[in-house]
């Protein structure tokens, strides 16, 4: 078991690190094409990262360790989550440690550290971004944990491997109302968590409208590369998590090399399709005013609550 399992973990981490910029490039490309533009090509994010790695790192005067460690921690937490989450295979040496609450909390740790870095600069934009990011993160937390609750009911445990292998065994669970509601709630939560369009506009230039971007205005060179990579990896991991939770076909449940290879390919395809659909949908959305975001999150919280209620009342556990 350990050979293929370990390979699965390594493949997942490397796949997420390498694939995240490509996914971001693809999403920008889809968006450009739908807006009639030619778009900068799928490899552009990699070129940006390569250029940023070559540039000179600047540390603003008066900032402390939080400012310097935040980019590292952002990528670090997302990479650990990529290792834990059963994207390619559910039978890995770490699969019994992959608890959904732990995954959510590790991602939240990355958000908290980045917010601290925003405050550490002491500039008005850093503080503004940190304050808004923490407000959104605080409001997303109930939705995520309630959808975790809804998902954990059929399989009796919050362990991700158990949930996913359970979903692979009887796909009817995903079509049940509880599954659909949980999927919708988690989708909105992922949008809020990764700062995509309805909540925050990643490609904005106007500082006053930023949430995630405002905290990173002081970063340059390799730090900025890590921050952008971290954001892209977080999006990829969360989309991967959505895929393995709600469309687990083809995920490797046994630790055989063939199943693993197939699972990796299928994972890449599925995440690419989901990314493209998200990019296409973003063309239709506009950024919601910051104080309408709680309405959006309250709606998704209601969906999650209904998911729990549905899963309890329907199959009469």
């Amino acid at each position, binding site marked *: 078991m350990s050979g293929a399992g370990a390979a699965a973990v390594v493949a997942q981490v490397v796949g997420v690190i390498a694939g995240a910029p490509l996914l971001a490039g693809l999403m920008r490309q889809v968006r450009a094409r739908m807006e009639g533009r030619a778009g900068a090509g799928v490899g552009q994010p990699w070129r940006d990262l390569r250029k940023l790695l070559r540039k000179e790192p600047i540390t603003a005067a008066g900032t402390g360790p939080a400012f310097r460690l935040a980019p590292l921690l952002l990528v670090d937490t997302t990479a650990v989550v990529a290792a834990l989450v059963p994207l390619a295979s559910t039978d890995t040496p770490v699969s019994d440690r992959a608890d959904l609450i732990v995954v959510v909390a590790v991602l939240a740790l990355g958000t908290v550290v980045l917010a601290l870095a925003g405050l550490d600069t002491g500039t008005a934009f850093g503080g503004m971004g940190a304050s808004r990011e923490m407000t959104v993160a605080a409001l997303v937390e109930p939705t995520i944990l309630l959808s975790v609750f809804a998902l954990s009911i059929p399989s009796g445990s919050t362990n991700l491997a158990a949930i996913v292998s359970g979903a692979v065994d009887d796909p009817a669970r995903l079509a049940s109302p509880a599954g659909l509601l949980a999927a919708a709630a988690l989708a909105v939560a992922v949008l809020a968590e990764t700062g995509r369009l309805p909540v925050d506009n990643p490609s904005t230039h106007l500082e006053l409208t930023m949430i995630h971007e405002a905290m990173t205005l*002081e970063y340059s060179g390799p730090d900025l590369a890590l921050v952008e990579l971290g954001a892209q990896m977080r999006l990829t991991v969360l989309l991967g998590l959505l895929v393995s939770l709600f469309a687990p076909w083809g995920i490797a449940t046994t630790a055989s090399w063939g199943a693993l290879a197939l699972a990796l390919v299928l994972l890449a395809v599925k995440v690419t399709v989901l990314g493209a659909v998200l990019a296409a949908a973003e063309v239709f959305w506009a950024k919601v005013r910051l104080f309408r975001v709680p309405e959006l999150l309250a709606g998704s919280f209601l969906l999650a609550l209904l998911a729990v209620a549905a899963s309890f009342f329907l199959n009469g556990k």
Partner: protein
Amino acid sequence: MSLLRKIRDTGRVAEPAPPRPEQEPPAAARELGGSVQVRHVDAGSCNGCEIEIGAAFGPVYDAERYGARLVASPRHADVAMVTGPVTRNMAEPLRRTVAAMAQPRLVLAVGDCAMNCGEFAGGYGVEGAVGDVVPVDVSVAGCPPEPDKIVAALRSVTGR
């Protein structure tokens, strides 16, 4: 769904890419490797060049396809795209903006005003051209310069 139908009807608006400019990219640009993040600084321009820059990044000329991207903070930027003659109160901010950019960095002067104060030469409020305040690497002539000239200048920096 009417938006979807509109998207399908308009199709691709961006014009086909003209051939790459053959002039060598400036020394500092060689390390950028096809990815340039641009920070636009209006040092006193009459907004004519801004309109053209907007058109350059618009769907028709689409400067993004060559790897250029407008960013909010000079820390993130490699190129400072400066327009207009440098007025007295914008001189110090312009120096600070360029100083805030990480090496390797370039300055792109857009428009006649940026190159030689154009119409506003000798004005009492004008400190001088962009070249007098910060070292300029690439410049685009014209008042205002056509978007494809701006895109060409950017392409000379990105090398794509």
